């Protein structure tokens, strides 16, 4: 279990501030944020290699804020692996292990068996990450901190390693805190996602909530929401089927019905995959938002396509399958109708 309360850390001119979250034992936490957001600093502070300037770090229920890293029982894997270059792969894996045989077995399980006799400089980026992972797990920590560990691994190896690591995590009840830029990884692995921006924590929530209900427009844009509109909201007289917090949102000529927490709403966020496109109005849709527009652009990405619709003076991006684009005959200049459920319009 990792608990962080009002954590503040300084790293030169950079400061990480106001970070608070709780990650239960055996859970997988994801740390998201742009470069310089403080992700690595957060991991280093939890590991104890960087002192906390304020706030507390609790591991397994015990306050470890002032405990040195060698007594925290935390493994860390850095983005660049940082294998000790003067040691062989086997010496690296055994470095902190109390049971060398267990360390070697672990390395074999992770696919580093044939690398053991080699020098660190002979390894590829992906191989280094695997060895670094084995080295971090060899002392049997119950908390593992991962700083973009799969970044240098090829896609096939990444899938295999992710699966193996997930299995190990479940088997050993490891609590994992994982920095990644891969939103897919965040969605498939994470129980809790922590979003950092400019040294501050923006939001900590289950990944689904983070992506569906980002705390701010900046968070929504970072998390890849295609449609973020600035405007204002007014309370709506709730219908029988409406969720609490249903509001009417206006941005220029665009009018939407969405859901948010009443208060200072300034933005509407719609993910592209929540926009359903048709050539003309369907009679039976229960969606609260039906918008007509003209197709401005169609960009295909493999099996998917981004269709930009001009609705009044504002663009609305829909993510649909490439097959749908062909079926509907969506070409630039053609007219289309977009329907969006009120619950898919997040007001923040």
């Amino acid at each position: 279990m990792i608990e962080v309360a009002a954590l503040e850390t300084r790293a030169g001119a950079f400061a990480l501030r106001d970070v608070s979250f709780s990650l239960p034992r055996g859970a997988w936490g994801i740390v998201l944020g742009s470069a310089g957001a403080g992700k690595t600093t957060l991991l280093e502070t939890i590991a104890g290699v960087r002192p906390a300037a304020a706030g507390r770090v609790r591991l397994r229920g015990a306050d470890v804020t002032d405990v040195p890293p060698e007594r925290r029982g935390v493994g860390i894997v850095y983005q660049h692996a940082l294998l000790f270059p003067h040691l062989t792969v086997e010496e690296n894996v055994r470095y902190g292990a109390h049971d060398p045989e267990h360390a070697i077995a672990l390395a074999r399980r992770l696919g580093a068996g044939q690398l053991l006799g080699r020098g660190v400089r002979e390894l590829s980026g992906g191989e280094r990450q695997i060895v670094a992972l084995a080295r971090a797990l060899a002392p049997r920590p119950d908390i593992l901190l991962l700083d973009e560990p799969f970044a240098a691994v090829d896609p096939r190896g990444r899938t295999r390693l992710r699966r193996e690591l997930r299995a190990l995590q479940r088997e050993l009840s490891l609590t994992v805190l994982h920095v990644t830029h891969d939103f897919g990884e965040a969605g498939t692995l994470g129980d809790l996602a922590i979003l950092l921006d400019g040294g501050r924590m923006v939001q900590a929530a289950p990944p689904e909530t983070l992506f569906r209900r980002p705390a701010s427009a900046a968070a929504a844009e970072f998390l890849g929401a295609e449609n973020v509109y600035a405007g204002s909201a007014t309370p709506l007289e709730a219908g029988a089927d409406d969720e609490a917090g249903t509001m009417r949102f206006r941005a220029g000529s665009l009018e939407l019905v969405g859901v948010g927490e009443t208060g200072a709403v300034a933005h509407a966020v719609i993910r592209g995959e929540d926009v359903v496109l048709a050539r003309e109005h369907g009679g039976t849709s229960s969606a609260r938002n039906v918008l007509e527009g003209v197709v401005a652009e169609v960009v295909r990405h493999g099996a998917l396509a981004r269709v930009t619709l001009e609705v009044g003076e504002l663009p609305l991006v829909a993510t649909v399958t490439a097959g749908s684009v062909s079926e509907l005959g969506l070409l630039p200049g053609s007219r289309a109708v977009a329907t969006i459920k009120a619950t898919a319009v997040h007001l923040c």
Partner: protein
Amino acid sequence: MSSVAERGRGAHRVAAAGVVLGALLLLALLGLPIVVLLLRGGLSGLAQLGADRELRSALWLTAQTATAATLVAGVLGTPLAYLLARDRMPAGALVGALLDLPLLIPHPVAGMALLLAFGRASPAGTALAQLGLAVVGSRTGIVLAMLFVAAPLYVSAAREAIARVDERYESVARTLGDTPIRAAWRITRPLAGRGLVAAAVVMWARAVSEFGAIVILTYNPKVASVLSYDRFTGEGLDAALPVAAVLVILALVPLLVLRSLRAGTALGEPAR
């Protein structure tokens, strides 16, 4: 257009010729005295080594005291260099400035300062004499003078060598169970090893060549630099040349060692 381009090329050629000429002039100023000295005294100096007992003894004393001073600097200076490299030294900027000071003051002045601090009349000198470590006119004095003028070079070079080792290696070692000292010993020491040896070689070479501070503290027993001065003032240039030439030849050894160390690949530099 073409005349402008030609004028540009002409100016470039003149500038290049100026740079080459300046470099040759500087090299001649640096190299000529050494070459002449070696030509005049080199062979006779080497030949004299067999017969000149005083020269052999001075060289042996120089090597012993320079080695002792380097060892002391290694033991006391490496932890200091580590703390400075890792920004963990309280008042690090002040300590850095203090370390630079011996490099900037004239060496006879350094000798006088040492005499005042550790001479027979000083409390420290009296205490050391009672321990059998009299500073004036002794090997201890030579080692002390060498240490004073050359240890800052060791600390500075060792600090750079340690700073080149990515600190995160130690962080990883700490999470694997090492205490700070153990991590520095198992990780940073071997990774900075080549740089630490180079720092020791620089210090040793500087200690061997020291004259000004030593001559104030300890004229006798004579190290090689004092012997060459003694022969120059007592017997003239020709008598001093063989000793001086042997000292130059001796300086080539650390130079070659340094070259070979720098040719090796650096380990442990920050990953990119």
